[in-house]
Each structure stands twice: as structure tokens, then as C-alpha cells.
């Protein structure tokens, strides 16, 4: 079970609100998706300047692994009042402790429409059990699909 003292975005950010301050990070699922258990695969995390005002759902930074770049989205609206100074040089913190030491930013919660947030059980339902309790296998390779190739038309590139 993931921590139930906070809420989640479907895009894998968590937010823990204490009084007027929201602490924001990313889930173990997000880290796993990016680096598949190899923490050295994370290469860069771009975090915002202090004082920037974000809307709920707005992108506040990005995280890059050796093979992909993903947005970081804010679950709440407000002003960014603190940025974790340890992350940039120690990305392994995100693999070791995404829930506590791996927080990314703190936001002074302002007025504005909130994003649609999930509690821990709803997030769990969407994303499967936490690391260690999850089956290693996910979607089979395409050629292993017993139904054979399934027709699927992409929009013209």
C-alpha cells in the first residue's frame, strides 16, 4: 500500500498538504517506469525557480532518464516556496525514498481550481501494487499476443 497521508495525480505525482503548504514528489511507479529498477538511468531533474506560481495540473519541471524525458505536474495551485536542494546531485534519492527524502518542491497553496486527485487506494487500483509486490511481467511483446497482430490505425505522422 502506498502512503495514505497524501493524494495522487494519475500522472504519478503525489501531494501531501499540511496547513497551507503542499509537499510534492513523484511515486515509486513513476521512478520505476523511467528507470526499470536501475537508479543510474536517471540523469537529470529540472526543478523550477522559487517564487514561480503554478496552476493545478501545470508542468513545473521535468525528469530525464537515459531513454526518456517526462513532465512533472503540480497537483495544486500556488507559489513555489521551496525546492529540494539535494535532488539535482543525488537523483538516487528518488529511487531510495520517493515518499520522504525524495520530495521535489513545496508550494504555498493558493486559490484556484484543484486538479482531480486520487487517494492511495484509487491510485493503487489504477497503477497496481507498489514495488516488490508487483508481478514483473506486464503487457506481452506484440508477437506474443495470442490473438496475433491487432489492427490499429495511427493518425498520419
Amino acid at each position, binding site marked *: 500500500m502506498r502512503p495514505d497521508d497524501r493524494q495522487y495525480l494519475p*500522472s504519478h505525482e503525489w501531494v501531501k498538504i499540511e496547513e497551507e503548504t503542499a509537499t510534492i514528489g513523484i511515486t515509486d511507479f513513476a521512478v*520505476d*517506469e*523511467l*528507470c*526499470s529498477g536501475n537508479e543510474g*538511468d536517471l*540523469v*537529470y531533474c*529540472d526543478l523550477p525557480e522559487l517564487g514561480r506560481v503554478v496552476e493545478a495540473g501545470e*508542468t513545473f519541471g521535468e525528469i*530525464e*532518464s*537515459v*531513454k*526518456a*524525458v*517526462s*513532465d512533472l*505536474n503540480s497537483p495544486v495551485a500556488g507559489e513555489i516556496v521551496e525546492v529540494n536542494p539535494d535532488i539535482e546531485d543525488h537523483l538516487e534519492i528518488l529511487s531510495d525514498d520517493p515518499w520522504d527524502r525524495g520530495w521535489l518542491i513545496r508550494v504555498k497553496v493558493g486559490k484556484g481550481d484543484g486538479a482531480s486527485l486520487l487517494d492511495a487506494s484509487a491510485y493503487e487500483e489504477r497503477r497496481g501494487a507498489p514495488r516488490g509486490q508487483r508481478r514483473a511481467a*506486464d*503487457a506481452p*511483446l*506484440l*508477437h506474443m499476443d495470442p490473438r*496475433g*497482430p*491487432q*489492427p*490499429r*490505425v*495511427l*493518425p*498520419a*505522422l
Partner: protein
Amino acid sequence: MRRITGGGAIHHTNELTFSLTTSLDHPLFAGPVSRSYERVHEVVQVALTELGCEASLRGADGLRSDVEDTGMCFHHSTAMDLAWGERKGVGSAQRRRRGRVLHHGSIKLGPSKYDTEIATLEGVEDPGEVARAITGAMRSTAGIKLSPGVPSSSERELAEELGARAIDPAFVRRR
């Protein structure tokens, strides 16, 4: 210029760059990044086989084309990269944003002065031939049918706007 997908530098000469974009719940891209690479590379592998090139996923061991600290995409390999002759042959990167993904790959038809000692498609001179092989493999391997098309004027305008951002020194030098 700097790509929004990250990754190492590519010298775009004598090569084919292909891009795929779709939603993140598409069967090609669902789940971990590494799995999506395996699936896309499986398609590319089928295309390369058709062109007479026996490529395979790199796996655990490093490659002869690995060179430290050059910043070049083809000089850095991971387990999911496609290689032949113990050299990296397909360079790839992904951007994941708001439930969408942009994946692109580069396949070299010959060497360039910045990418020495890498795998190239010997005997194939026309990038269009590689593109057609990939399109065919998309259909035969993944059941995806691609239709020819041209960008609309609004898409062209947007591409120019994004292109200007990609060469903006503030973006290129950030970090």
C-alpha cells in the same frame, strides 16, 4: 539544436530519422519505458532483417562503439538499444507529456565524422527504402497501418514555432 526528447547528440547526415507519436496507453508504449523500447525495437528489428541486417537488442554487455564523454548518442548504449557487429545501430529517445508520447529513432546509412566506429546499414543508399521497411514492419509485426499524409498549414506553423524554441540559446544551454 536541442531535442525535447533528451538523449545524446546526433549528426543528421546519411541517415533516416523516424518519429512516432501516439497516446501512452497505446499497446506499443504502455508500461515502463524499457518495455516500450523493446516493442518499438522489435518492429525496427523486423525492418532491418528485411534489409539484410541482423540486429539484436544489446543486452547486458557494452559495445565496441561505446566511447565515454563525447555526448554523442551513438557512443552511449543501453541494454535496450539495437546493435549489430557489436556496435550501436539505432539511436532513440522519448518524450512523455500529458498522456502522449513522442518517440524517435535514428538509423545511419553510413558513417559521419562525428560518429565513428558505429553500426551502419551497408549497401542501403536510400533512406526511403528504410522508411518503407519500417512502415511494412509496423503493419506485419504490430498490426499498425500508416497512411501517407502531409502536414496541414497549422501543423507547419506549430512546427516552426517549436523549431524556434529548440534553437533558443536559453533552452539549448539550460542545465
